[in-house]
């Protein structure tokens, strides 16, 4: 068993084009660490010194992790983590 991580198009350069990859960890933070070991470079696209990057959305199953415990959110086998870059911009 493992946790499925769904990868958006723009980050698939780190996963050899795979739409979804497996990783392990007891928390989202540990999961991202494991993801980095398997797909070097991806972590910096998801987190910075202050935590989850502001314009990256991460969902545990059907919920935005910002409404759960952020990087401390517990994850377990069978969960699905989905990464979606925020769609944002503006005139100024």
């Amino acid at each position, binding site marked *: 068993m493992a946790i499925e991580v769904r990868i958006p198009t723009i980050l698939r350069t780190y996963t050899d084009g795979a739409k979804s990859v497996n990783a392990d960890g007891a928390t989202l933070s540990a999961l991202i660490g494991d993801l980095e070991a398997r797909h070097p470079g991806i972590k910096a696209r998801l987190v910075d010194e202050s935590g989850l990057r502001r314009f990256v959305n991460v969902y545990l199953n059907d919920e*935005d992790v910002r409404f759960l415990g952020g990087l401390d959110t517990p994850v377990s086998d069978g969960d699905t983590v*989905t990464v*979606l870059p*925020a*769609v944002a*911009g*503006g*005139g100024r």
Partner: protein
Amino acid sequence: MLTISRELVDKIIAHAWADHPDEACGVIAGPAGSDRPERFIPMENAERSPTFYRFDSMEQFRVWREMDDRDEEPVVVYHSHTATEAYPSRTDVSYASEPGAHYVLVSTADPDNVQFRSFRIVDGVITEEDVRIVGG
């Protein structure tokens, strides 16, 4: 080049006016790999701002999953500028996250001259493209 129906162009412009002076935003989905914008999906601007837009994260999750289930992709990502021209701002470029999408910008800054333009934004580089409006 973006090829899009008159009906969808009208819907995007109507959405831009409905939310003016706040920025309006949304997606037009199409079959994956087809480059055909077909299904109009107006999105909520979670920022409700005249100078910024951001899709609501939960709405985006539902819409992206629905596209996945239907084997669709975001062919067009559109938003409006309500006080500036229809050209990608630095903010637009820095957050552009769908390299395969046509980024459509509408400007409602001048009611007598509504601009509708389309761009590719890949790796920070803006490329304007022709828009071919068909039908209607």
